[in-house]
């Protein structure tokens, strides 16, 4: 973490508030704090906010608020961050069917780690993963904190199509594909829920600084949830994170 936050210029209509140079939960917590604080303060002239691993991109309308003024406003807000009450991050449950057609690479992850299927599933689903940021595609979460025992290199040849909802491992990271796309991740499971739904408000239910928790489900439960989602009556499980879980 920098001892002094950097305010970088990104052209005539944006500033980057940069808290550090590495990937760490502490730095990301500052990003989330600043993001929520700006949103809460409803500052005039703000066009959009993009929170990432270690910085927050603030796009603004310079015809409403010019550079110097925006800089000072943000610095002032940052100064009052410590005193602000911010909402607790949420945990969102991701019901996941591991293995089989949904997770064709689960056996490879077992071989690579020397663990049984049950052990891999248990390890993967026992943690709440911090969402460092969303990017690359709508709702694509960059997650942190996977157990090193199940780390597995990417596929040598990427697949041309990965189904939406696929849960995978790439090196030290785990992740989930909100939309069908090509990719080289080792696929270990799949969720029937819609991470991204342009017709839903909001289209994406989790934010930077929230957590995802994978919950193993049976094939039968997967089918039931899939049906509920299709009928629009699935209840997404989203709740405030409990303290000192990790």
């Amino acid at each position, binding site marked *: 973490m920098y001892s002094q936050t950097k305010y*970088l*210029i*990104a*052209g*005539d*209509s*944006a500033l*980057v508030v*940069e808290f550090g*140079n*590495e*990937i760490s939960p502490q730095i990301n917590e500052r990003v989330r704090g600043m*993001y929520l604080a700006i949103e809460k303060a409803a500052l005039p002239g703000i*066009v*959009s*906010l*993009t*929170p*990432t*691993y*270690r*910085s*927050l*991109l603030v*796009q603004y309308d*310079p*015809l409403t608020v*010019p*550079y110097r003024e925006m800089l000072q406003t943000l610095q002032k807000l940052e100064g009052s961050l410590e005193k602000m009450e911010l909402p607790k991050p949420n945990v969102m449950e991701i019901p996941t069917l591991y293995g089989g057609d949904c997770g064709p690479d689960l056996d490879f992850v077992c071989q690579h780690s020397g663990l049984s299927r049950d052990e891999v599933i248990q390890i993967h689903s026992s943690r709440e993963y911090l969402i460092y*940021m*969303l*990017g*690359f*595609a*709508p*709702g*694509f979460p*960059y997650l942190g904190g996977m157990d090193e025992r199940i780390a597995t290199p990417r596929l040598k040849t990427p697949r041309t199509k990965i189904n939406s909802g696929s849960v995978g491992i790439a090196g030290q990271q785990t992740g989930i594909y909100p*939309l069908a796309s090509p990719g080289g991740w080792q696929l270990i499971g799949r969720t029937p829920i819609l991470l*991204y739904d*342009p017709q839903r408000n*909001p*289209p*994406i239910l989790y*934010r*930077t600084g929230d957590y995802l928790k994978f919950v193993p489900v049976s094939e039968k439960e997967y089918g039931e949830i899939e049906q509920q989602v299709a009928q629009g009556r699935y209840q997404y499980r989203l709740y405030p994170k409990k303290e000192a879980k990790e």
Partner: protein
Amino acid sequence: MNAVKVISPGALTTVQDAGRFGFLQSGISVSGVMDSYSHRAANLLVDNPQEEAVLEVTLMGPVLEFQCSTRIAVTGAMMQPKLNDQPVPMWQTIPVGEGDRLSFSGIQGGCRAYIAFAGGLDVPVIMGSKSTNLKAQMGGFEGRMLKRDDVVPLKAPSGEAKLWAASEEWIPKFPTQITLRAVLGPQEDLFTEEGIASFLNTEYLVTPANDRMGYRLEGEEITHKAGADIVSDGIVMGAVQVPSSGQPIILMADRQTTGGYTKIATVVTADLPLLAQAQAGTKIRFERVSVEEAQQLLHEFHERLQAFARTRRPVNG
């Protein structure tokens, strides 16, 4: 029904407005028009709000058949529009009737043309915008580029049926040698002095690898102090990203929301329309300006549009 039918779609014709800014935090790209000057001017010629959605047409124009009478205007790249095979002027309101066909003879300069419709396009507003997000297959007309036999709904023409012609001085030219003003940063400190000097003092060429996502340029290598990778952060339109090859890429409307390469500078908003109209082979020089100067240029950009609106002259239909 107020609508326009696609007889042939052209190379890449999409519905775009000023962009979708509300969901960057969720990884949803901005999209929107590439050339915001031509976009806004087209709307002014049909008495629409400047930010109303238009059709963005790329290199090769579509053939459109009107199923109602309305007013349209074509701006941007010089694509030689025709109505029922008779040449019609660009940068001027064109009254069209039911059954009329709009087509294009071929491109003589620039890259993208804009067709505005009086009253606007009647496509759903998704997440605050009518823009097409091609990658997420969302927004615009069914989340995709137009294809043959599409029937694109139009709003009923609004306002008085005034016909306008733009004053010559506010019609942009599309030179094959351009200067883009840019503000250094956000990562200029990760480049060598020589790298920054190359960027500011030598000429770069637009390569054929240019599209709505970005423009890949080719020229003197821009050298890094210690590598091109950073911890991913947010990206704005006009960001000049330099991967390890040292060859810059200017990110445009369909860029991803975040990226992991160093960005040496950001092209000023006011100059992005010039780049949006650049074809492969266009020569680019960069000129450094301060953030205050860049914001003054944006101010002048909007003043130009006001002057455009003020000096357009009425024409007889």
